[in-house]
């Protein structure tokens, strides 16, 4: 006859074994709504700000106006939002960007969604911060003023326009009260305000987030299966990692456009002595990806299924391709559709965007 003490010990041992098996080992995720191993995939409520540009509502409000203000451009007709539409996933819905005047660029407009959580910026990583990007982006040769230098438009003309607007004088004084009057409206303060606004463009309450927080019904069975493929057989998490689903790294995915002699060199533009970086581009976030067709840095995939098919076959152009692409994935049709469904679950509820009233 088994003693009561022995039975208790057996039950305790079995409980401990079950607990051990269900706990994540070596960083692996346990695919269960609310499991602690998944909590690291939740974004902080707000992105960090640098110490020399602490976030304030006044800066963000000002930055929002500047982001949508055509007076910021050389022509007076282009804004940051001309390529970053709120209603197009903060991209432009085009295969690749088209500048004012009609020049078709080699790269797609990247999203602004969750950009404040990134650590390096632009497809080739040439910008170390949002402030630097917004500073350089005001240059006469930059995108929103492209072609103006040839017409004799002077560097910094937009600052003179902004300074003349009474509403901006008030706005800059409110946003930068410590700044001396003579430098309160400058290329630098404009950049800081725009960066502060960009840090408010956040997607962090998708069905996936609700499921991670414990709502078992937030994702469908197909979406949960897609998550399993994402972290398992598909190993998408190798590059689309962390709460913003990007490693901020650079990878060559073997897209067909890489075969062109004049292909964009991507990261190699910043690391010219390292040919291994030729054709490597920054991993974008997958948050709200379903709102951001077409896909890839060259816009070559029209649907998320086309994206999955690309990875499943191991890419197209094998020269310089990432080792993570080699061999393909061997996914079944169900697994591919589940992956697509999971990516759709990364979409936060879409709210109508309120455009700013521009100061006069």
């Amino acid at each position: 006859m088994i003693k009561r003490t022995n039975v208790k010990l057996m039950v305790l041992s079995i409980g401990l074994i079950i607990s051990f098996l269900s706990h994540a080992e070596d960083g692996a995720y346990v695919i269960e709504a609310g499991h602690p191993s998944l909590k690291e995939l939740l974004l902080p409520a707000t992105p960090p700000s640098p110490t020399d540009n602490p976030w304030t509502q006044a800066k963000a409000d000002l930055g929002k106006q500047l982001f949508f203000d055509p007076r910021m451009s050389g022509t007076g007709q282009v804004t940051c939002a001309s390529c970053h539409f709120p209603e197009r996933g903060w991209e432009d819905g085009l295969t690749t960007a088209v500048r004012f005047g009609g020049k078709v660029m080699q790269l797609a407009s990247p999203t602004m969604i969750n950009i404040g959580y990134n650590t390096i910026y632009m497809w080739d990583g040439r910008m170390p911060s949002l402030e630097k990007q917004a500073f350089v982006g005001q240059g006469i040769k930059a995108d929103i003023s492209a072609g103006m230098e040839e017409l004799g438009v002077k560097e910094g003309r937009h600052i003179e326009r902004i300074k003349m607007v009474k509403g901006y004088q008030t706005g800059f004084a409110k946003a930068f009260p410590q700044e001396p009057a003579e430098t309160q409206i400058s290329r630098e303060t404009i950049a800081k305000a725009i960066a502060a606004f960009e840090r408010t463009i956040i997607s962090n309450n998708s069905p996936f987030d609700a499921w991670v927080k414990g709502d078992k019904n937030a994702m469908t069975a197909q979406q949960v299966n897609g998550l399993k493929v994402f972290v398992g057989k598909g190993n998408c998490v190798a590059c689309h990692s962390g709460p913003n689903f990007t490693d901020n790294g650079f990878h060559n995915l073997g897209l067909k456009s890489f075969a062109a002699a004049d292909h964009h060199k991507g990261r190699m533009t910043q690391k010219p002595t390292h040919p291994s970086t030729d054709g490597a581009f920054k991993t974008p976030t997958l948050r709200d990806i379903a709102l951001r067709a077409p896909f890839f840095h060259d816009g070559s995939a029209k649907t998320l299924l086309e994206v999955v098919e690309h990875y499943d076959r191991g890419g197209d152009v094998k020269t310089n391709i990432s080792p993570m692409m080699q061999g393909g994935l061997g996914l079944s049709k169900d697994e591919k559709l589940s992956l697509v469904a999971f990516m759709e679950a990364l979409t936060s509820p879409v709210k109508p965007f309120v455009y700013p009233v521009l100061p006069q």
Partner: protein
Amino acid sequence: MSKKTNILILCGTFILGCMLSIQSHAAEYTASQKDKKFNPEKLKIKVGDAVNFVNDDNTAHNVYSESATNHFELGMYRKGQARKVVFDKPGTVEVECLIHPGMKMTVEVSK
């Protein structure tokens, strides 16, 4: 054997002995790549020592340095693979990953 030959043999033996002595004192260290970080992030070694860069991560890395004293690129490799670098000059070597710019470590090489 002439006196000259004996001296030559002695010198050769002495030089060979020194080389073997240096080699036998050269150490090998391990720098692991895991969770897109190096471990350790700071290493102090001596001239002639080697560092074995081991990929323990679920993604490929490409370890490199553009430091004046030790300039190298190990190429992209995946989990389970390792590549070794012998540091043969003194100085501070900044090591990074070409794929993941946030991955950095420093190797201090002393004489």
